[in-house]
């Protein structure tokens, strides 16, 4: 049974883990391991027994079951790495203490009994306890269960183990947690932290750690209030972290079982906590970065697992466990989650040097396009600021209106009014001050009456105040003035004081009545507003920002000069809203109107870009932001907005997009975290994904899993050190399509420094086609080359054979002569020496000939150089002279004087000539010997072309074949291949020339080709 499982496991390759019950292994499939299993499967029929016998047995002892992070981060990495790197099959089994549920000792006893019984059937070669509970358990029952078995303690703090645990045939990969360091990390990024809520469960191991942390955090207690949540059920913990006081931080240690006895998955608990917490969270392990923690020096559970696997392999291969060093893995350099930093407004400058920031989010179509355009983000920020300021402007106008109304109210509301009211008689002396006044100044009525009130006026303002009052009084005119009046708390407040003469029914002057309002706040605001207005104007000016306002009730429009310029409305003319609307491009009106409606309805804001059509018909792109403002009564609804000319940016964007789309290769843009910001259509086509599926994903989605796994590190190498790393180089690797198939690609990485940080432009070229095309082209070229060489060899055979056979004949004759002399006994040493010397020299001669031939037809890239065609003709004439003799043919050569050079490959051109001349010889096989002449002529037409003609006196070109002569595989010869003239033509054409054949009047055929002189050769 067991064996059947093993075989099945082997056959199913990477799926082996699932074949065995209570086995849970390696989510990572790796090509190497897959290959290994495949290999094993092939061997299985003959070697199944042997393999089974040899498979090393590893028992993993889990502390908390098989899905209990962080411990299972260790075990998963351990198992995957072990299976992958072992190079042979490993028989993995695992048991779990499940300490979160069954922590009492009777349960452990039961487990020990169970394990003891198992030992009889399945004795491990290595025991790997993962996590401190498992470590403590194994150490305690070591002698009973695994007395001779090596132990590898993994994923625990070394301090948890009894001192003797590592002495006997055991080793250790784990941590030595720097407990105070976790607080240091928090204070590094949030120095004003006053509370730290410590999240930890209530299981025994967690209780141990609670104690350890309490002790370790003691030194901070004078500045930080630690809130220990270990005694709360999880839902109450959630409640607490939701309501933490300001300046709090949450430190998430471990959450395996809460105080209510509920078992939890620590990572899921962390994520839930992140959803509700009102303070930032930190934790211990690297894999939790991305689950909601801010970050710091994080410990590497997976690395511990992998390193442990390497030690396990050494132990399984026979190294004594005690001889291996104990490994403290340690924390990574600080890493942070950008999203959390942003969420909690933690300044990146606070991060310690050497920090890595991950998860920069790709809200980034904007990001990338902004840098493309340059500086646009600054404008966006300013626009936000400015629309905020505009809101203030409006409020101020309203405030002014309410001031204007105050006088009317005063008349009706006298005493109950919240304003300060005074009454003076015709003698200018004060006769009444209302309650509000007295409360304001905190003085008695008696002291204020008459001139007493003036005592509270700021001495600097008093003169002016009295002068204004008296002047107005004497003239019986209303007045308004402002002065500083001391409040009961001694603070001078700015008061606006409006006075009017009062008369009786008969019209007799009675004196004055006035009302004062504390306008300090308003003045302050006004000052601020003035400054803001100036800033708005400046910013608007600087950014070419147009400002506008629309009263939706009246459809009245107010446009700033910039807006007018932008929309080409003349300054100072009336503009109605319909004029404004008319400018908007018809196609964009509906969208814009819908956004406005929505903003009005929700009293919100909108942001859009639309086109406008100017009077002269030119198009302009406008970026607009606007906010809807209603007053409380709902009487007036206003839209306040800004507009900005983004035509250039739009055009640049269009250009960029068009350029990216038009790029002949696939283009992907990545941010620092290898998230995809942008892809072009080629990528969609190549990979089978749509843009929407890709944007925001990490680049791993485009890579085979095996590569994707190592990619994060690889990627950071790629991106971290532009210039030092492979950036800028071209890499060939495999990519994965959406359907899971892999294909070869060439990628080129180009780093782009932007205000948003480093981006990487990756261009991806599909090599599968290029490779196939290259292959095809190379194959064809080689075929032609081969055939041409073969044909040239054939043509040259006469010469070569003749030359080579000469020395060979001499050698054989000499050698035979020597043997005969020896056999007959009639020889002397001198004679033999002569013979052998001749043999040697003839041998050398043969060698020379072969070298010469080889170099003449050597394989290789065509060598182009300046050559004289006359030389080629002479050379060929020499080469074919033996052939000519054999055919009883005569060569007549007439060469033009002062032939200009051409550019070309001499070997190829020799081939052309040899082919043509050999054809000429063959053509005259039946001709009478006296007429067997071949004439070669060279001629320069003075116009950049040189022609070479070969004329024979054979029967001429058969009727009807003239057109097909140069086709491949067309031949008139009984044993011809039909390649010669095809090759000739291809060579001539490759040199920029042409070739023709014709019958000559006096009999025979003439083949002539022309080649451009070196100046005319096309580049």
């Amino acid at each position: 049974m067991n064996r059947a499982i093993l075989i099945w496991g082997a056959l199913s390759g990477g799926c082996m883990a699932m074949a065995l019950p209570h086995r849970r292994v390696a989510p990572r499939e790796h090509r190497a391991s897959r290959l290994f299993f495949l290999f094993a499967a092939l061997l299985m029929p003959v070697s199944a027994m042997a393999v089974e016998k040899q498979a090393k047995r590893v028992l993993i002892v889990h502390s908390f079951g098989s899905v209990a992070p962080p411990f299972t981060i260790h075990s998963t990495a351990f198992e995957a790495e072990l299976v992958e790197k072992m190079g042979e099959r490993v028989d993995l089994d695992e048991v779990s203490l499940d300490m979160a549920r069954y922590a009492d000792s009777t349960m452990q006893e039961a487990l020990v009994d169970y394990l003891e019984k198992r030992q009889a059937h399945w004795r491990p070669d290595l025991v790997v306890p993962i996590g401190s509970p498992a470590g403590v358990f194994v150490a305690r029952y070591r002698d009973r269960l695994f007395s001779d078995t090596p132990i590898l303690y993994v994923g625990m703090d070394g301090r948890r183990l009894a001192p003797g645990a590592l002495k006997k045939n055991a080793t250790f990969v784990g941590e030595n947690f720097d407990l105070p360091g976790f607080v240091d990390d928090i204070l590094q990024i949030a120095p004003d932290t006053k509370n730290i809520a410590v999240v930890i469960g209530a299981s025994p191991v967690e209780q141990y750690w609670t104690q350890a942390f309490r002790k370790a955090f003691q030194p901070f207690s004078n500045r930080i209030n630690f809130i220990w949540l270990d005694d709360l059920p999880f839902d109450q913990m959630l409640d607490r972290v939701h309501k933490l006081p300001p300046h709090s931080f949450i430190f998430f240690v471990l959450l395996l079982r809460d105080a209510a006895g509920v078992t939890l998955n620590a990572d899921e608990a962390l994520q839930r906590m992140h959803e509700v917490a009102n303070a930032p969270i930190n934790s211990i392990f690297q894999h939790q970065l991305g689950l909601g923690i801010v970050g710091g020096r994080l410990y590497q559970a997976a690395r511990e697992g992998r390193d442990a696997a390497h030690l396990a392999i050494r132990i399984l291969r026979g190294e004594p466990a005690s001889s291996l060093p104990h490994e403290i893995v340690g924390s990574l350099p600080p890493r942070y989650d950008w999203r959390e930093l942003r969420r909690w407004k933690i300044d990146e400058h606070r991060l310690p040097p050497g920090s890595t920031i991950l998860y920069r989010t790709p809200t980034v179509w904007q990001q990338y396009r902004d840098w493309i355009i340059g500086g646009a983000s600054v404008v966006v920020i300013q626009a936000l600021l400015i629309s905020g300021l505009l809101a203030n402007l409006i409020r101020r106008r309203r405030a002014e209106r309410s001031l204007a109304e105050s006088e009317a109210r005063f008349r009706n509301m006298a005493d109950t009014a919240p304003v300060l009211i005074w009454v003076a008689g015709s003698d200018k002396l004060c006769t009444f001050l209302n309650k509000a006044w007295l409360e304001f100044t905190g003085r008695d009525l008696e002291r204020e009456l008459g001139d007493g009130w003036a005592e509270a006026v700021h001495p600097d303002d008093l003169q002016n105040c009295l002068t204004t009052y008296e002047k107005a009084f004497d003239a019986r005119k209303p007045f308004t003035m402002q002065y500083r009046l001391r409040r009961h708390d001694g603070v001078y407040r700015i008061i606006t004081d409006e006075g009017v003469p009062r008369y009786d029914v008969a019209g007799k002057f009675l004196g004055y009545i006035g009302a004062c309002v504390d306008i300090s706040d308003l003045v302050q605001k006004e000052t601020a507003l003035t400054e803001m207005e100036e800033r708005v104007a400046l910013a608007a000016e600087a950014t070419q920002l147009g400002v506008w306002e629309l009263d939706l009730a009246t459809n009245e429009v107010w446009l700033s000069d910039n807006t007018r310029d932008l929309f080409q409305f003349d300054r100072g003319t009336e503009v109605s809203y319909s004029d404004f609307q008319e400018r908007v491009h018809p196609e964009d009106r509906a969208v814009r109107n819908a956004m406005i409606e929505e903003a009005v309805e929700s009293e919100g804001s909108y942001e859009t870009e639309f086109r406008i059509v100017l009077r002269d018909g030119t198009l302009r792109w406008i970026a607009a932001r606007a906010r809807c403002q209603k007053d409380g009564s709902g009487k007036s609804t206003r839209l306040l907005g800004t507009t900005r000319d983004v035509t250039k940016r739009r055009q640049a964007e269009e250009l960029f997009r068009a350029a990216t789309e038009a790029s002949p290769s696939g283009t992907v843009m990545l941010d620092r975290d290898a998230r995809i910001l942008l892809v072009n259509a080629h990528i969609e086509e190549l990979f089978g994904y749509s843009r929407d599926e890709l944007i925001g994903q990490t680049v791993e989605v485009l890579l085979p899993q095996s590569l994707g796994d190592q990619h994060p590190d690889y990627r950071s190498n790629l991106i971290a050190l532009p210039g030092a790393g492979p950036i800028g180089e071209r890499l060939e690797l495999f990519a994965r399509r959406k359907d899971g198939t892999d294909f070869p690609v060439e990628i080129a990485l180009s780093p782009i420094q932007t205000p948003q940080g480093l981006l990487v432009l990756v261009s991806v070229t599909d090599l599968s086609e290029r490779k196939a095309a290259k292959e095809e082209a190379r194959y064809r070229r080689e075929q032609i080359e081969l055939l041409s060489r073969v044909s040239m060899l054939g043509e040259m055979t006469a010469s070569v054979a003749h030359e080579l056979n000469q020395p060979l004949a001499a050698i054989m004759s000499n050698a035979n002569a020597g043997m005969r002399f020896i056999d007959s006994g009639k020889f002397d040493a001198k004679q033999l020496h002569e013979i052998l010397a001749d043999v040697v020299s003839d041998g050398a001669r043969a060698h020379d000939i072969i070298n010469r031939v080889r170099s003449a037809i050597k394989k290789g890239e065509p060598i182009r150089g300046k050559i004289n065609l006359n030389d080629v003709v002479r050379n060929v004439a020499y080469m074919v002279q033996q052939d000519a003799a054999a055919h009883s043919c005569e060569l007549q050569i007439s060469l033009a004087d002062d032939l200009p050079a051409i550019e070309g490959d001499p070997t190829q051109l020799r081939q052309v000539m040899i082919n043509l001349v050999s054809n000429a010889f063959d053509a005259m096989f039946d001709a009478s010997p006296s007429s067997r002449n071949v004439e070669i002529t060279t001629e320069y037409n003075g116009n950049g072309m040189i022609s070479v003609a070969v004329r024979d006196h054979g029967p001429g070109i058969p009727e009807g074949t003239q057109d097909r002569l140069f086709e491949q595989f067309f031949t008139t010869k009984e044993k011809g291949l039909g390649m010669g003239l095809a090759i000739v033509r291809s060579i001539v054409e490759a040199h920029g020339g042409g070739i023709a054949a014709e019958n000559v009047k006096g009999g025979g055929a003439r083949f002539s080709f022309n080649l451009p002189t070196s100046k005319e050769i096309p580049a």
Partner: protein
Amino acid sequence: MSVAGAIVFVIDDDESVRKGVKRLLSSADYETEVFGSASDFLARAPHPGPSCVIVDVQMPGLNGIALQEALIQRRRQEQLVFITGHGNIPMCAQAMKAGAVDFLPKPFKAGALLKCVESALARSAAQRRRAKEKQVARASLDLLTPREFEVMQMVITGMLNKQIGGELGMAEKTVKVHRGRVMQKLRVISVPELVRLVERAEVPAPVRA
């Protein structure tokens, strides 16, 4: 395996081939003379004894085939063995038709060349012997009167005396006398013997009317 008075001539434009072949022949005890070109050889007086000419086909100037033609024109009957670095069939056929002993492609085996030389010299010797016998036979035939010659010619065709008499218009008895004289002059005693002698003399067959 030398033949008394025989010379082997070697004509090749390639000096090392000449040397090698000459050595090979010397090792087989042949007397050898070498020439760098065909015209040099033609300039030498014909050798009276048995001879063999080993000649390269491809040579500048007069080539092997041309030499063969020249020798035939001069009615010289040297036995030719062609050697060639790269021959072709038409060339070979032409040479063999014109009476070459053999046509050996270079590099040839020593045994093959020596065998060619041996048979060439044997042919050369036999040629010379046949020429001598013909001379002798012709000299005998020259002793016959025209009438006796006529009768002899008819006798060797196997005609009876009576038939010969009828043919030549003479009596059977007279035929018998002529016949006796022929046998006596040519020193033969039987008709088959007479036939062989006439063959040796290579007398053209009588033309029948």
